């Protein structure tokens, strides 16, 4: 959980172990439209202590389920403009199958379980809590 931008190059470097041949990363970016409405930015709030332990639990689960070497996840809080990176996940594995599967597992679980909420700020000035994930 980070309340300011994190350098992705640094996050990636930690995963660069010599046993790893495949690396998969996922990033969630603030998108300029959602459900056809123009978005100016998104305010992310989190119940930080639980978000942190739940995020760590998800990464541990990924390590148990898939043959991976290393995995990290980072999630921003606070107000992010269009184009900013809200979430970053990186997974290093011997082979690409495990890297892709674990990376997908981690982002899917984060979206389902980690106590983070987004309030979209529309270009019109209106703000709204995003009700739930539709995909």
């Amino acid at each position, binding site marked *: 959980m980070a309340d300011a931008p994190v350098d992705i190059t640094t996050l990636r470097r930690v995963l660069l172990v010599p046993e790893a041949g495949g690396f998969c990363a996922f990033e969630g970016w603030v998108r300029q439209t959602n459900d056809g409405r123009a978005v100016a930015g998104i305010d992310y709030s989190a119940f930080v202590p639980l*978000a942190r332990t739940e995020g760590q639990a998800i990464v541990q689960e990924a390590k148990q389920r898939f043959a991976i070497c290393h995995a990290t996840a980072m999630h921003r809080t606070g107000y992010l403009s269009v184009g900013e990176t809200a979430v970053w996940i990186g997974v290093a594995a011997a082979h690409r199958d495990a890297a892709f599967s674990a990376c997908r597992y981690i982002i899917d679980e984060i979206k389902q379980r980690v106590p983070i*909420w987004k309030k979209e700020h529309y270009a019109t000035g209106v703000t709204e809590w995003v009700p739930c994930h539709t995909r």
Partner: protein
Amino acid sequence: MLNIDLQYFAQLQDAAGRAHEIRTTSAPTAAALYDELRDVYSFALEPACMRVAINAAFSPWEQPLRDGDHVVFIPPVTGG
């Protein structure tokens, strides 16, 4: 009576008009406490679509509350 340390997020924070309060209650469980708060703040969210965290850990709605517990009702999450 129990003193419960409540923290509110997202829609619940807007409806309650606050992020935090210490509340004295006779509610024996988180489920009962949420029912009590719905009367006070008109929370629109159904408990069926939420989870509850007691002392920063996901917990059963029917877990007995103890004095001094920190309780957070978790609206549907939308991170990522």
